[in-house]
């Protein structure tokens, strides 16, 4: 798998996950949905940067 493809798939997967929890939060606007969105945001950011680094090695 090429590096660009690896990055693209990784970022897309992470982005979809983040979007999913954001949508859940907007639709329900509950504290538990907010907590899950917060957790998703905290997982998303370092993961995206790690995928970026891995794709550049």
């Amino acid at each position, binding site marked *: 798998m090429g590096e*660009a493809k690896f990055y693209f798939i990784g970022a*897309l997967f992470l*982005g979809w996950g983040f979007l999913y929890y954001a949508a859940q939060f907007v639709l329900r606007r509950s504290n538990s949905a907010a907590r899950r969105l917060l957790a998703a*945001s*905290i997982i*998303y*950011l*370092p993961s995206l940067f790690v995928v970026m680094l891995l794709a550049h090695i």
Partner: protein
Amino acid sequence: MATEPILAVFDVPALPRPRVARSTLLSDYWALTKPEVNFLIVITTFSGFYLGCGAAWHDFPFVRAINAVLGTLLVASGTGTLNQYIERRFDAQMRRTARRRPLAAGRVKPTAVLWFGIVLSVLGSVYLAAAVNVLASLLAMATLLSYLLFYTPLKRKTPLCTVVGAFPGAMPPLIGWAAASGQLNFQAWTLYAVLFLWQFPHFMAIAWMYREDYARAGYLVLPPNDSARARLVNLQTVLPLLALVPLSLSCQG
């Protein structure tokens, strides 16, 4: 990072957590530096550095990278500390921060915290200038100043503070990039934009979870009116994310 303590996510457990009785002076000062935010700062600063230097692993400047991350951490810790100094009275009125933040809980003296914050910030800025380069140091100082002079006071004035706070909050990868290459280019600003946009859904989640707490302490991070609040939360959660995902896909290369 302009966002509020990330630890919040782990702090709403199903089981009641035993109150931490033993907090030493060391752990209190450690808590002042906002270690939970610093974790993300390390990752994003290092990533900015790595992508900015463009070197292969075998001639990667490790010492310079460590210096850049260390200097940035010092300034970020100083910023977090000074922010708590400024907000000490309000933090004491918030359930989320009253006990966890040593200053709000009255375990450390305000003057000591003020000096601790100043020393960390000055040390970090000088360290960056001496061990890395002047651009990285200037960017770190600009982050500190814009955070404390604009974002911190605006939190009590307008819900638009989030937008203002996202500018200093997105700086870590830019500082890393500048540390590696001594300059900033389009790619560096793309990383900046990623972090800028990321903060909105992140912070909306926190602001929503603690909306009563914020309101009680007199913060205006969300509008007091219910429907206006819902609209702003929706907008700031979804729109930035719809821009973030396509932007993140373009980051490669």
